[in-house]
C-alpha cells in the first residue's frame, strides 16, 4: 500500500557516503564544494552521512590501491540495499596517470559494479551535481524493482 509513496520518496532524499581509495584529493574537494552555500546540494535532499550503514549512494574517488582494496570491498558490502555506486573523476574509471604503478590494482569496475561515472579531472561541481542527480534516479528504479 505504501509502496508507491516509498518509491517516490527514495528519489528525494538520497544520503551520500564518500570513500577515498587512494585519490589525490582533488575530486574530494569538488565533492564537498557541492555542499557549500554556492552550489547547495542539500536543496535536492542530499546529505553527507558518517557511516556506510546509513548511506544510499556511495561515491568513490581515486584508483583502487593495494592497501585499500580489501577495505573498500568490505565497506561497500556494508551498505544496505538498494544502493548506487558512483565513481567520481577519471581515476576510478581508468586509473588516469597512475596506470601501471606498483601499488595500483586497477580501475573500480574490476572489483565493484559501478552505476554512474562522472568524468573529469577534477569534474566541475555542476557535473558532480548532475552525476548525483542521475544516481538518485537510478536509485528510484532499483527501489521500484526490489522485492
Amino acid at each position, binding site marked *: 500500500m505504501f509502496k508507491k509513496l516509498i518509491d517516490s520518496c527514495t528519489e528525494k532524499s538520497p544520503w551520500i557516503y564518500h570513500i577515498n581509495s587512494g585519490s589525490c584529493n582533488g575530486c574530494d574537494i569538488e565533492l564537498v564544494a557541492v555542499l557549500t552555500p554556492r552550489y*547547495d546540494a542539500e536543496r535536492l535532499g542530499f546529505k553527507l552521512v558518517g557511516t556506510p550503514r*546509513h548511506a544510499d549512494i556511495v561515491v568513490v574517488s581515486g584508483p583502487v590501491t593495494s592497501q585499500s582494496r580489501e577495505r573498500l570491498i568490505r565497506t561497500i558490502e556494508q551498505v544496505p540495499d538498494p544502493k548506487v555506486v558512483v565513481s567520481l573523476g577519471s581515476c576510478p574509471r581508468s586509473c588516469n596517470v597512475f596506470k601501471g604503478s606498483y601499488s595500483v590494482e586497477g580501475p573500480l569496475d574490476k572489483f565493484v559494479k559501478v552505476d554512474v561515472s562522472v568524468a573529469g579531472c577534477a569534474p566541475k561541481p555542476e557535473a558532480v551535481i548532475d552525476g548525483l542527480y542521475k544516481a538518485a534516479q537510478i536509485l528510484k528504479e532499483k527501489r521500484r524493482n526490489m522485492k
Partner: protein
Amino acid sequence: MTFNPMYLFYILVFPGFLFTSFAGLLLAGIDRKVLAHMQKRIGPPITQPFYDFMKLMGKETIVPDAAPKAVFLGAPVIGLISLFVTALLIPFAGLTPFYGIADIIVLIYLLTIPAVAIIIGGAASGSPFSGVGISREMVTIVSYELPLILVLLTVGKKAGMALTGGMTFSLIDISAYQAQNGMMITHWAMIPAAIAFLLIIPGEVGTQPFDVAEAETEICEGTMAEYSGAPLALFELSHSVKMFIMTALFTALFLQGWTTGIVALDAVIDLAICILLTIITMTLPHASAARLKVEWLFRFYWQIVAGLALISLILVWLGL
C-alpha cells in the same frame, strides 16, 4: 476510571501518535530550513524529514553478527513509545487527556527512557564507535538531569505555595495557577529558571553544540553507527519528537494560562510558539557554535545552568 471511547482518539490522533509525529517532523524540517537560510543557502524543503522517514522505511535492515537481535531491534521502539506516553501527559492547547497527582515525577522518569534506549541500542551494536558514543551519552544524561529537576521543582513549588501552601507535582495545578495569576514567566523570580530551561532544551534533544553522543564527523555517528532501515527511521523520529516534547513542556510550564476559546486555534498558536522556541534555542546555537567537548558540556550544565535554576529555587523558597 471508566473507559471513554474518546481515549482512543486522544491516544492515536491528538495529541497522540499522529499529531506528535507530524509536529515533530515539521519542527525538524523548519529547523533545517532556517539553519540553511542562516548560512546563506537555500536548504531542503520543509517536508524533507517526511521524505527521509519514508525512504528509511524502504531500506533493508541489517543486524550485525555480534548484536543480540531482540535488544537491537527493540531499543528504538521502547524509546519512541515512552515519548508518545509523555506527549499524552503534557497539557497542549488546554487539553489534558490523562492526568494525575504526581505528573512531574512521572515526567522525569519518562524523559530519561529515550536516552537510555539510545544507550541500550548502542551497547547492543557491538561496534567500538558505539562504545565511545554510549559513554558520551551517559555523561550528557547526568549533566542535564540536575538542572532539569531543579527547574521542575521550582515551578512546582511556586504553584504549590499559592494553592496549598506546600508543593504540587501536578501539571494541571500549574495550569490552574497560571490561569489565575498570569503566565509563570511574568513573575521575575522565575526568569532565571526559564533561561535555564531554554538552555536545557538543546542538550536534551541532542542538537549541534551539545551532540557529543551522536557526533557525525568524529565517531561515525556514535551510537547509531550500525543501524539501518526501519530501526534507524524510528530513532530519527524519536529525535524529532523530542524537539516537540521539550518545547511543548516549556510552554506548559511557563507560558500557560491564556485561551481563545477554540481548541483548534489554541493548538495552532501553541505550535507557532513551539516553532519560535525551536528557532531560538536549537537553530541559532547550531549555526553559531562548534561542538562542545564532553568535559565542557558537563561543566556548563553543572555550573552555569544549574546555578541559574538554583537562584530561582532559592528565591521561590524565600517566598518572592
